[in-house]
């Protein structure tokens, strides 16, 4: 019931399209000074693609080293730097900016707004990111190398036992945090204040709903991350003892504060993907989304629960049984709203007139594989079992299923879904299908056997391992290289579209797609909805 009633007044949107000059500066200054939500969305997405390959190449180093037992290519300290920086780059550089980029592009189009509410802040929040990652990645070339304490930078690894890269890391995280918080504020203000007349809350597309909830999560927890890195900095350099037992602090306190940020963070990285899938599945099933209200409520419930489960990352720190039980049960409770979502997607497809274009293929793969990641999460939530799984490759398998085949597949599905709207040309379906099948097979070769080696006891974050894991690891590495190579097909697809190679896309693009963004021409004109569209109230 949410989207099918939306109709703009005829010819409101494309009125600038036919004019030759849309007042944008040319060349590099267009991108440096831009306040246009579409330009900034594009910048975010391209930056995140660059970071995907930066973090991805580090993953390739990791998999090359783990191809055989023993030390082949890199020394253990550099290996630790790779796992650490890979995690930081993928979380803060690839997944989060990609979602902000999609929000920049799609949220104003979906709610009928002319632009983001705070366009100059928007420009600033993007341009902080390249600065932050230049600082972070520059440590790789410094004496002593990059941070090596893991992306979770537990103390005392990041204080007593780290080199001065910690200072660069902390400052980079501050910049990323400021960027994320500003981006989140912008999205909240846009959705609150710039909805077209008649676009009531319960008519918002689900991508907008998931993003506003994500934005609130960001505002709640990114400042806590800024606080915890500040404490690490002052503990290391200014003699404070937040986490230093010698001065009355407590190292376990670090984990509590970090995971108070860290657990909502994992939902920050998945909720927008839920929104994307909720846009794609109805379009290709040619049915309205099943259970719109329950989807909204489920998303909000997941966001709320994410604040009271953080210590399930810390079961082995010696918590009292009562606390372990509390965090076990609350964690398992998250399966309920998540299950609601999965069943709603399946129910949306049920008896739909489905077609299987690339976005739909990635969306279906998302639903299946994310659910596998969710199930391994439930296994990890069982406190006594977690003592066995803790710090093994089982954990690595779990969070890569939810982050790669979850978040990343969601983003890729969204890019395939919306790129005809952005560029005005259809992507090559053959290339897209090829990318999908290569990715699907290789990603499961890469991550599925990790469950087994993890259960058999292979610890994570090590450059060498016991001989009995050799065959599995060789297989995993081959899957890793294939998955890395498969993403070149994605890049080829994106650049074909950017260079306008392909069939011209219609405004509607997809037969079953509903919503305001499909009622403006493709490519979306530089300025849209300068006069708000009229949303007809249906029923």
């Amino acid at each position, binding site marked *: 019931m949410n989207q099918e009633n939306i109709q703009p007044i005829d010819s409101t949107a494309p009125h600038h399209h036919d004019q030759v000059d849309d007042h944008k500066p040319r060349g590099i200054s267009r991108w440096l000074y831009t306040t246009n939500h579409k330009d900034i969305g594009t910048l975010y997405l391209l930056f995140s693609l660059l970071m995907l390959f930066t973090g991805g190449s580090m993953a390739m180093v990791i998999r090359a080293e783990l191809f055989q037992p023993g030390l082949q290519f890199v020394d253990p300290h550099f290996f630790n730097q790779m796992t650490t920086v890979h995690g930081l780059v993928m979380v803060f550089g690839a997944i989060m900016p990609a979602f902000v980029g999609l929000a920049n592009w799609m949220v104003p189009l979906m709610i009928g707004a002319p632009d983001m509410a705070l366009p100059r802040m928007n420009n600033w929040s993007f341009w902080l990111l390249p600065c932050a990652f230049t600082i972070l990645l520059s440590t790789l070339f410094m004496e002593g190398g990059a941070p090596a304490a893991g992306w979770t930078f537990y103390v005392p690894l990041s204080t007593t036992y780290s080199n001065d890269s910690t200072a660069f890391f902390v400052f980079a995280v501050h910049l990323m945090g400021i960027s994320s918080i500003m981006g989140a504020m912008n999205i909240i203000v846009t959705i609150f204040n710039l909805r077209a007349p008649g676009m009531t809350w319960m008519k918002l597309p689900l991508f907008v709903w998931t993003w506003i909830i994500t934005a609130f999560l960001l*505002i709640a927890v990114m400042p806590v991350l800024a606080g915890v890195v500040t404490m690490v900095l002052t503990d290391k350099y200014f003699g404070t003892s937040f986490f230093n037992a010698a001065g009355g602090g407590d190292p376990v306190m670090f984990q509590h504060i970090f995971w108070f940020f860290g657990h909502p963070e994992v939902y920050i990285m998945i909720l927008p993907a839920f929104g994307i899938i909720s846009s794609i599945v109805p379009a290709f099933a040619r049915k309205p989304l099943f259970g719109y209200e329950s989807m909204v409520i489920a998303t909000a419930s997941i966001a709320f629960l994410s604040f009271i489960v953080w210590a399930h990352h810390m079961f082995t720190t010696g918590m009292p049984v009562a606390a372990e039980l509390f965090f076990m049960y609350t964690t398992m409770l998250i399966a309920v709203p998540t299950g609601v979502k999965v069943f709603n997607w399946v129910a949306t497809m049920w008896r739909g007139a489905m077609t299987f274009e690339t976005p739909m293929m990635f969306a279906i793969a998302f639903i299946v594989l994310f659910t596998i990641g969710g199930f391994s999460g439930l296994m990890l939530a069982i406190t006594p079992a977690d003592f066995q799984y803790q710090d093994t490759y089982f954990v690595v398998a779990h969070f890569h299923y939810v982050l790669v085949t979850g978040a990343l597949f969601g983003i890729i599905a969204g890019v395939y879904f919306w790129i005809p709207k952005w560029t005005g040309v259809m992507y090559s379906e053959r290339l897209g299908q090829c990318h999908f099948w290569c990715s699907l097979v290789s990603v499961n070769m890469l991550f599925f056997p990790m469950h087994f080696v993890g259960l058999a006891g292979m610890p994570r974050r090590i450059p060498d391992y016991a001989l009995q894991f050799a065959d599995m690891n060789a297989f995993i590495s081959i899957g890793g290289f294939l998955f890395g190579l498969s993403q070149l097909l994605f890049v080829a697809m994106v650049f074909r579209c950017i260079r306008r190679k392909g069939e011209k896309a219609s405004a509607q693009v997809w037969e079953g797609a509903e919503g305001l963004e499909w009622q403006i021409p493709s490519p979306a004109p530089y300025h849209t909805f300068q006069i708000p569209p009229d949303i007809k109230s249906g029923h």
Partner: protein
Amino acid sequence: MGNQNISHQPLLRKLLVVSIAMFFFGFALIPLYDVFCRLTGLNGKTANTVAAPSTRIDTSRRIKVEFIANRDDSIPWNFAPEINSLELNPGAVKVVNFHVKNLSAQAMIGRAVPSVSPGAAARYFKKIECFCFTEQPLDAHGEKAMPVQFYIDPQLPAEYSTITLSYRLYKSQGQTVTR
């Protein structure tokens, strides 16, 4: 342009206040956790204050108490208990000495942080007097015995038969005594 004339400032200001508040909330978590742990007796933290004297002795059972001493890299002292373990009746008061010797040519101050395992038994471990209550200065190459006087609360639940008292010795920060 209808709704585009809405001022964004009020909402933006509220969001800014929330994010700044959350920044300080991160810091506030530390005292909040301390209060929470003190109220609930979690975390194996023993009260670092003088306990009331023992009032009765439970002669029906004996509890084994083990002692562990180790030191941080920051402090070049030898640190060891005079005995590794003893057995006592709940309520009986005992004194155990921990020996320290400063191996360096510098006077310095040490601070011992206690911890009791299993954590849930910590609240039944009563210290009447302890070297961990205060900072411990030691001259260059100096040595001394540091006593801890304690008893086990007779209310200790029956499932505990062994309690481990562990100390970790740290150099008290920024307070090296000048000779």
